[in-house]
C-alpha cells in the first residue's frame, strides 16, 4: 500500500504542491520505518546468536542486548575434542559431503536437463514427473530401510552413506532448476554451430556449456546449501567420524556439565551460518534467479 502512496502520480493530486510534497515525504519515511522494522525482525535472531556466541558462559542468561563480557572461549569449547565435541571434524565432513553431492548432482543434472529441455523423446513428461515425485518422497520413510541396508553393507560411518541419500534430493532440485534455465536459452546458437559443422556433442561443449555456466553456478549454490543444511538423514546414518555440522550442533556438550550449552551452541551456529549469510549477500541475485527459474514469466 505504501508503495502505491509513494509513487502516487501528481496528475491525481488536486491538493497544493507543498501539501503533496509533505505527504510524499511522510509516505517515504513511513516506508523507511516499516522496511527498517522488517529488516530488524529478520536480523535480530542472527544478531542475538552472535551476542551470545561471544559472551562469557557465566553470563549466558544476561539479557543485555549489546556485546558484553566478550570472549572467544565459546569457540574454543566448540572445537574442543576433550569435551567430546567433534566440530572441526564435522565442518570438514559437511564440506566434503556437500561438495561431492553437488558435483555429482550437477554432472548428472546438466545432461538430464539438456535432454529434458532440448531433445524430444518418448515419455519425457513421465521422466520429469518421476524426478519431481522422487523429490516429494518423505525422507522419514527412507531412513529406516537405508539404515538396515547400510548396516548390512557396513557403510555406517562412511561418506557414501550420507552422500548417496543426499544426491537423491539434491539431484531432482538440480535437474528441475537447470531444465527451467535451459528452456530459456537461445537455441538458435546451437543450430548455427551445427550448420557450421559441429557435431551435437561439440555444439553442446563449445556453445551451450559456456552459455549455461551462470545457471550451473546458481544451481550449484542451491544444491550445496540444501546438502549443507540436511539434518534428518545425517542424524540417523552418521557416526562420530562422519557426523555433519547440523548433527554436531544439535548434540553439543558445553564447558559446564548439567547446563544447556547455549553459548557454545551459538558459537558453533555462528560459524555454520555466517558463510551462508555471506553467500546470500554476495550471490543474492543469482540465488533468487535460480529459485524463480521458470516461475515468474
Amino acid at each position, binding site marked *: *500500500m*505504501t*508503495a*502505491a*502512496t*509513494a*509513487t*502516487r*502520480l501528481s496528475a*491525481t493530486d488536486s491538493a497544493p504542491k507543498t501539501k503533496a510534497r509533505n505527504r510524499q515525504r511522510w509516505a*517515504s519515511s513511513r*516506508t523507511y520505518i*516499516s*522496511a527498517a522494522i*522488517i*529488516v530488524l*525482525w*529478520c*536480523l535480530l*535472531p*542472527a544478531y*542475538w*546468536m552472535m551476542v551470545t556466541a561471544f559472551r562469557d558462559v557465566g553470563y*549466558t542468561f544476561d*539479557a543485555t*542486548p549489546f556485546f558484553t563480557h566478550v570472549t572467544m572461549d565459546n569457540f574454543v569449547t566448540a572445537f574442543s575434542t576433550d569435551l567430546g565435541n567433534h566440530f572441526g571434524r564435522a565442518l570438514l565432513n559437511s564440506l566434503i559431503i556437500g561438495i561431492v553431492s553437488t558435483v555429482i548432482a550437477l554432472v548428472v543434472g546438466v545432461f538430464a536437463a539438456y535432454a529434458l529441455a532440448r531433445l524430444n523423446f518418448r515419455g519425457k513428461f513421465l521422466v520429469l514427473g518421476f524426478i*519431481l*515425485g522422487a523429490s*516429494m518422497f*518423505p*525422507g*522419514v*520413510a527412507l*531412513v*529406516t530401510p537405508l539404515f538396515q541396508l547400510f548396516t548390512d553393507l557396513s557403510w555406517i560411518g562412511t561418506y557414501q552413506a550420507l552422500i548417496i541419500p543426499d544426491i537423491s534430493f539434491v539431484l531432482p532440485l538440480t535437474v528441475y532448476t537447470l531444465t527451467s534455465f535451459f528452456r530459456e536459452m537461445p537455441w538458435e546458437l546451437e543450430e548455427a554451430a551445427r550448420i557450421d559443422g559441429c557435431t551435437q556433442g561439440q555444439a553442446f561443449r563449445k556453445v551451450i556449456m559456456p552459455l549455461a555456466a551462470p545457471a550451473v553456478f546458481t544451481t550449484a549454490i542451491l544444491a550445496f*546449501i540444501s546438502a*549443507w*543444511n540436511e*539434518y*534428518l538423514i545425517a542424524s*540417523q546414518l552418521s557416526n562420530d567420524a562422519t557426523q555433519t555440522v*547440523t548433527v554436531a*550442533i*544439535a548434540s553439543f556438550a558445553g564447558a559446564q556439565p548439567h547446563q544447556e550449552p547455549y553459548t557454545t551452541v*551459538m558459537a558453533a*551456529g555462528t560459524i*555454520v*551460518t555466517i558463510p*551462508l549469510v555471506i*553467500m*546470500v*549477500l554476495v550471490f*543474492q541475485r543469482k*540465488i*533468487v534467479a535460480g*529459485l*524463480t527459474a521458470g*516461475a*515468474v*514469466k
Partner: protein
Amino acid sequence: MLGTTAIFTLATVGGAMVLGLFVAIALNLNVKGRGFARSAVFAPYVLSGVGVGLVWLFIFDPVYGVLSWILRSVGTSSPQWINDPKLALWMVIIVYVWKNLGYCAVIYLAGLQSMPKDLMEAAALDGAGNFRRFVSVTLPLLSPTTFFILITSLLSSLQAFDIIRIMTPTGNGTSTLIFEAYLQAFSTYNRAGYSAAISVVLFVLLLVVTGLQLRFVERKVHYS
C-alpha cells in the same frame, strides 16, 4: 495429527505469503539500502533449520529467553511456550513464518519488477486509488507468482522437519504428519509400520499438490 498439520500448513504458508507480499511491496520502492534489506530479509531462508531452531529456542525460553525478558520489562510474565502444546505449535509456526518470509518476499519482488508499469499508470490516470490499484491491478497481475509460491510453500511446509524436531523434540502439540512419522519410527514407540503408513499418506498428499502444479503451471494466467 491431520488437524495439527492443517493448522501448521495453513498458518505458515498464509502468514509467510501475506507478510512476504507486503515486504516485497516495501522493497520494491526506491529506498536507500534496498539491496542490503533484500539480502537481510532473504538470509533466514537459507540458514540451517537446526541452527535457527536452537536460536529461537533460546529466545523463547520462558525463564531465560530474551522474549521473556522483554515481556517482564513491560510487566507481564512469559507464556509457557514449550510446555503448553497449543503455544508450542504457534511458536514453531512463528519461526517458520520468519524463515520463509524472505523466500516469499524475493519471489514476489521478482514478480513486481516484471510487471508492466504502464498498467499501473493507466489505472492511476483513470482515478483508481492506492487500495483499488492494489486489488484490481497488482494482485491479478501477480497471480502466476502467487500460484508458484503457494505450491512451493505448501510442499516445503508439508515436509518441514528440522525446526520442529529441534524446538519440540517430543512432538508436544506439534506432531504434524511428517514429525509424527518420525516420532513413531524413532522415539520410544518403535512402530516402523505405522510410521511408513503415515509417510505414504503424506506422499500421496504431496503428489496431489505437485500434480496441481504440473496441471496448471502450463496454462497460468498471463497478461502480457
